[in-house]
């Protein structure tokens, strides 16, 4: 109440709308005091200056689709919504560049660029409504990462407000630029803990001329052989996903899969796609795949879209993200699938095997303290197993009781001291709820 009043007194509603937080604003069990929506970067800077002075904790939010990622906050005073910072700054098709306010959505950007057959190749869950700021801050991606990389490959510049309320620019709007230190790269994946991103400049790509998707079905051993062959082949798939039976049921309900379903697509010219698909199907069959089909375009599009949104559709209680070396994907998928089968009644597994990212979702609710203790142990043992493979396990979604019991990011890395120094340099008074990211 007090915080909201203070902010309301400091700004006109046009500058910065201030509303009391409600139950809908609870994040990991923490009820913020108020929600503010600044209209410009200047106002953002004033809000942050005030917050630093009054020792308020400020969490920046976009469309709030991925706030389950991160440790629980100990305390949040202000939710800073970027909804009003959603203007397009520039889009120059011939330069393949665009800049926009942090609150602009990927859908908003796509509506501008797709008529020119260009796009930002980031396809996180909730894509249409995902804000640029949220996508960049949480370093979100989807299956396109297989061939297009991640946000850091596309962010060429940014503006942001530091923890002391100063506004800073880094990079520029041109596709190639080495002037100065790349602060904007640090903002990618920083979960808002280094500043409030206000504007983002991006490099775009031409859209694939066409896409052709192959669906195949393999057992554990076949998956390993196939991925290996694919890695050594000259084929350049645009996206590849491996799904266990439960995930496959959600993505392709009409398809009865045995073992793992593997979706792979090519995004070159139509002739090249046909040729590569043919080679891939031959490779699948040689690896012992039971079915390989070319999916009709419409079915393929639906499948890829469902795959992107699979996590929310499962209404998962718990989602783990596992990172491993790509060559370890197949054996890790097998290992995780077996482990999870022994501890949960249902689990879905979706992997991007060529980049070494595997998501596991379990529906099971965490009802008692013993559930929490049990899952803490399961996660600890998975982390140990993955450490042996130089991999890591991130708890992306979990009931708050479990998130309080385990560090969602895993154990501290060797460079934690540097990260802390950087966080302290950009947010010395801890305005940006640092405990969500670096504990």
């Amino acid at each position, binding site marked *: 109440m007090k915080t909201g009043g203070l902010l309301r007194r400091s700004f006109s509603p046009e500058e910065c709308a201030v509303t009391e937080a409600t139950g809908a604003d609870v994040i990991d069990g923490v009820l913020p005091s108020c929600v503010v929506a600044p209209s410009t970067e200047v106002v953002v800077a004033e809000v942050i200056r005030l917050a630093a002075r009054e020792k308020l904790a400020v969490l920046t939010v976009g469309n709030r689709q991925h706030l389950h990622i991160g440790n629980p906050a100990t305390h949040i005073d202000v939710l800073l919504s970027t909804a009003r910072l959603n203007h397009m700054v520039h889009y120059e098709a011939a330069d393949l560049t665009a800049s926009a306010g942090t609150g602009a959505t990927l859908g908003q950007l796509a509506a501008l660029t797709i008529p020119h057959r260009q796009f930002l190749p980031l396809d996180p869950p909730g894509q249409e409504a995902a804000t640029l700021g949220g996508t960049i801050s949480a370093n979100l991606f989807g299956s396109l990462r297989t061939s297009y990389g991640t946000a850091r490959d596309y962010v060429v510049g940014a503006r942001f407000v530091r923890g002391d309320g100063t506004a800073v620019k880094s990079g520029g709007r041109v596709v190639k630029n080495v002037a100065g230190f790349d602060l904007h790269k640090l903002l990618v994946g920083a979960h808002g803990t280094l500043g409030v991103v206000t504007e983002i400049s991006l490099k775009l*790509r031409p859209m694939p001329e066409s896409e052709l998707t192959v669906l195949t079905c393999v057992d554990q051993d076949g998956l390993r052989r196939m991925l290996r062959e694919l890695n050594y082949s000259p084929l350049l798939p645009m996206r590849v996903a491996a799904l266990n039976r439960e995930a496959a049921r959600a993505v392709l309900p009409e398809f009865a899969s045995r073992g793992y379903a593997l979706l792979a697509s090519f995004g070159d010219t139509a002739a090249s796609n046909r040729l590569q698909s043919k080679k891939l199907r031959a490779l699948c069959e040689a690896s012992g795949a039971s079915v390989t089909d070319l999916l009709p375009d419409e079915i393929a599009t639906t499948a890829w879209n469902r795959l992107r949104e699979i996590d929310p559709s499962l209404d998962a209680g718990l989602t783990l993200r596992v990172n491993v070396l790509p060559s370890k994907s197949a054996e890790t998928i097998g290992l995780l699938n077996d482990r999870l089968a022994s501890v949960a009644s249902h689990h879905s597994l979706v992997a991007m095997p060529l980049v070494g990212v595997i998501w596991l979702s379990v529906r099971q609710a965490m009802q008692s303290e013993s559930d929490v203790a049990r899952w803490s142990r399961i996660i600890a043992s998975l982390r140990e197993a993955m450490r042996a493979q130089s991999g890591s396990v991130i708890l992306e979604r979990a009931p708050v009781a479990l998130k309080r019991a385990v560090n969602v990011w895993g154990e501290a890395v060797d460079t934690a001291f540097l990260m802390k120094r950087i966080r302290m340099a950009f947010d010395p008074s801890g305005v940006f709820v640092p405990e969500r990211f670096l504990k």
Partner: protein
Amino acid sequence: MPALLSGAAPFTVHSFRITITGVTTHLSRKVIEELTAVVGERDVLVEDDELMVYECDGMVTYRHLPDAVVVPDSAEEVAGIVRVLGREGVPFLARGAGTGLSGGAVACAGGVVIEMARMNRVLDVDAENRIAVVESGLVNLKLTNEVAPISLVYAPDPSSQMACTIGGNVAENSGGPHCLKYGVTMNHVLGVEAVLPDGELVRMGGCGADAVGYDLLGAFVGSEGTFGIVTKVWLRLLKAPDTIRTMLAGFTSIGDASRAVSSIIAAGILPAALEMMDQRTVQAVEASVFAAGFPQDAAAILIIELDGFAVAVEEHATRVIDLVKSCGARNLRLAKDAADRVRIWMGRKGAFGAMGRISPDLMVQDAVIPRTMLPDLLPKIVEIGEKYNLRVANVFHAGDGNLHPNISYDLRDADETQRVKKACSEIMKLCVDAGGSISGEHGIGMDKMNYMSWIFSETDLAAMNDLRRCFNPSGLLNPGKVLPNRTCGYEKGFAKLLDTVPAETASVPR
């Protein structure tokens, strides 16, 4: 060549005087002994004739002799050297091949140069994951050659790739002709092992699997050797393209060539490389050992390279040919085989060397503009040259809008040198006003520190300085680079010294 400064001065200069006076950075016997204890006597160089090699990098207008050069064999030795120097408060920097073009590898505050050339091994090539692990002193082209037999490539290919090192590439976030499609060094580095200025050996980045925490690597790559000394690098390799088609198109005007560039991009085709050379550059190349049969009567030529699967490449090649013809291309030539392709690229990459034949000195500049501004800006750059009675030649990565205006001149001619300074400054201003940047790949180094305030505010620069302090709190690692001195208050020991450095040198905006 003017007479060298008197023997009292600790360094020699060309006619661009670097007026550092009253500073003694000579190392004490104790420091030399401690360095010797780390690397052995043979690997500590202190004689002036040995140090001369390290006086400057590829940007010869900035010169300063280091007090010593140390040649380590391992990361542990690098860490040992750094600990000694940190303890004694001696500035230091790492140097790869010294091919940099912004004065980044010059010991402008004296101190010690750590020569990385001997740490040049390929430690591992993981073909399945397409990752190479290399020491930082490895020459860029050696990696490419090493992985070619297994049909892999390391994409970033700066023109200096025959000499430049991977560590230098990481420091400068180097580009090259093929970064239009494949991106710059940043996009190909998965992890680095580096010695921080306090002597701590750390690993940043994923080394194959995603890392957790801030993207330190993203900040580190391109920090121009001021955040740490790279000792080991994990690099992404790509599958060698199935087919490469290289073509050459001559145009009767730079405007036509620029329009061809835009029309290719607008058609949704992303060539592997899209390079432009103007007539002056072409003529210089054709008169040199790099002669590649470029049409000398064309006002500008484009080198267009497409790669991918044969069926797609052929389809795109047909479309590109139609597009460039509709923009007025003539002298269309397709590389007939791999040898012909190499010849074309030797011509392009030899352009700087060839330009050097025309006059005693060459100012190689680097700036970026939005690609769409090419037709407007290129004639203006030529005009600026004419205004100062200078020969400006352009060779550049047209697809990225990354310009390299080159000015031939004679450093011994003080008046001409002064005009070069002014022209460079005006060209840079033109690019900045067009929404561009002051460097696309050569870095800021010493050369462009004073342009930084054209594109960044005091608060932007302060934020960058704060980040640098996180990695380099003492400021001893590669001082006097990237950020204009007024924002580097922490480099107190050097503040007086550095304030005087760029004042009378090449690129001072008025």
